[in-house]
């Protein structure tokens, strides 16, 4: 490109203005990246859900239990491949402000239904064998520096009392969207103690997880499950795991939508910042553009000069912002309560959106200055007093 030298040198005419514009773009890109990361982290549970898993819960509310006796009835439905169940345990480990999921589940079947929680054969066998054992996600193990053989004591709230578990395995997430911050232990271990302490709550199941053979049959199987318990004291609601996760998000959808909107408003702000800089620059150079035209430079050359400069500034600002977004997201993750977002990382789509936004902004900010430069007659350009 014959005008490359000008594209690079032009932004250096007003170093302070260019620096401030680049910083403005960088800050806006960081804000955009951070907001998008929060939004994608919010949806990670939905993204990580499996198409061949159904969740059966109490029809009235998730907080009401289901009877253990439903297990065999659901298992008999045609198309059900595996069945497991779980209870939300709650409780506190060391710090009540640091949250991670603690789940009492059927030790025999839970990891058959969740193959994305990867364990060694030895870890799984030991876990199944020892009733007071637990399995941790590697994120939680790393956070609390827990290793196999360590003892964890939970202070119960939904299930009162102190609960001791021996770590017998640390699962690794198979996929990027797999939650690596769960603690899973024996439902039987919890249930036995409940039989003694609170017999009226023994045998309670929080939800059933139904692995089906064919995801295309999820609607039919869901209907069949719910039909089994129609008009019973504990009617069920069965839905896909994705729908179940989305149900949790529904309550916060307004916040997420707002964050989404704000992230794109930020893109608009960047456009105004750069647009302002480019308009000022083009106005100051009206006479120069007239000189270029008089020397024989065409509209194509002027477009290259102005568009190139705009893209150069937006690319530098966007690049600086993007590079800084990574450490800032890591720092942000450290200050929010642990486990609040099981997976908190910059997604490729966020990077793609930020880069695309920077390019689009560079183009959009140059449109008006280009139009002005091209439409100004040479003699008017020479007469222009900026």
């Amino acid at each position, binding site marked *: 490109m014959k005008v490359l030298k000008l594209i690079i040198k*032009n932004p*250096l*005419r007003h170093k302070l203005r260019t620096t401030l514009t680049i910083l403005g773009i960088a800050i806006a890109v960081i804000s955009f990246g951070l907001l998008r990361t929060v939004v994608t982290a919010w949806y990670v549970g939905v993204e990580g859900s499996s198409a061949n898993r159904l969740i059966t819960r109490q029809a009235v509310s998730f907080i009401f239990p289901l009877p253990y006796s439903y297990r065999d009835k659901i298992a008999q439905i045609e198309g059900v491949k595996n069945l497991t169940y779980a209870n939300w345990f709650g409780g506190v480990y060391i710090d009540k402000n640091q949250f991670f999921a603690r789940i009492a589940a059927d030790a025999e079947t839970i990891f058959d239904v969740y193959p994305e929680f990867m364990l060694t054969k030895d870890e799984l066998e030991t876990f199944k064998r020892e009733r007071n054992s637990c399995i941790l996600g590697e994120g939680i193990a790393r956070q609390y520096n827990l290793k196999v053989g360590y003892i964890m004591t939970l202070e119960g709230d939904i299930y009162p009392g102190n609960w001791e578990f021996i770590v017998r395995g640390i699962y690794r997430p198979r996929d990027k969207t797999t939650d690596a911050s769960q603690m899973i232990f024996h439902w039987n271990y919890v249930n036995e103690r409940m039989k003694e302490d609170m017999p009226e709550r023994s045998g309670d199941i929080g939800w059933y997880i139904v692995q089906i053979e064919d995801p295309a049959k999820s609607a039919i199987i869901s209907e069949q499950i719910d039909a089994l318990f129609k008009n019973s004291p504990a009617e069920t609601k069965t839905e896909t795991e994705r729908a179940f996760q989305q149900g949790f998000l529904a309550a916060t959808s307004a916040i997420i939508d707002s964050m989404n909107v704000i992230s794109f408003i930020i893109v608009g702000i960047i456009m105004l910042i750069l647009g302002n800089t480019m308009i000022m620059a083009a106005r100051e150079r009206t*006479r*120069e553009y007239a*000189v270029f*035209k008089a*020397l024989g430079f065409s509209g194509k050359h002027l477009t290259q000069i102005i568009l190139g400069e705009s893209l150069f500034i937006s690319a530098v600002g966007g690049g600086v912002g993007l590079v800084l977004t990574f450490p800032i997201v890591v720092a942000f993750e450290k200050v929010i309560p642990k486990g609040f977002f099981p997976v908190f990382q910059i997604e490729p789509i966020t990077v793609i959106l930020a880069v695309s936004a920077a390019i689009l902004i560079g183009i959009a900010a140059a449109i008006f200055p280009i139009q002005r430069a091209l439409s100004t007659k040479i003699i008017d350009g020479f007469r222009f007093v900026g």
Partner: protein
Amino acid sequence: MSAIIQVQNVSKSYWRDSFEVPVLNDLSLEVNRGDFVALMGPSGSGKTTLLNMIAGIDRPSKGKLIVDGTDISTLGESSLAKWRSAKIGFVFQFYNLIPVLTAFENVELPLLLTKLSKAERKKHVETALGIVGLGDRMHHSPKQLSGGQEQRVAIARAIVTDPVILVADEPTGDLDKHSAEEILTLMERLNKEFHKTILIVTHDPHAASRAKIIRNLEKGDLIPEVA
């Protein structure tokens, strides 16, 4: 001697709001190849407008402009731009150098529109800057040069493509007496040694006196020739 510039019955008027302001009235002029012509006249007489039209950066409202065999009043914008880059060298009152480029890069600008290689461009630029006596200031930026030196860089930029015509609008208007003298001497040299046809617009009778021909304009009309 053949006429390189033929201005035939050219009129020009501008519109200010809804009022038509006539600038040139049915004006005709011929300039021969190798002439050095000074256009003089009071402000508003139309001398710069005439120069701009001959240089192809403004268009007549009526009439014909034939420059070096081309009727430029019929050319489209893109063809006119190409024609200008090949035929015309511009010198402006305020030099109009690009401040972020060095003297060398400023002079090289018109050559970027040609098919010359980098090495060929370098040779041409060095020659042009050598002619104006700034061979040792090639890598200086405009702000490191005096007004006279800046104007000499502008002249080097004007001649680097070897155009047939040089047009200069008040080339000494922003210079001190000594620098103005240098510029006028340089233009004389370009006319005599390099046979460039030169048209300058000036208010300064001393500057005009260095031209071979002086033509005066008044209220858009050309006053009969004074040899």
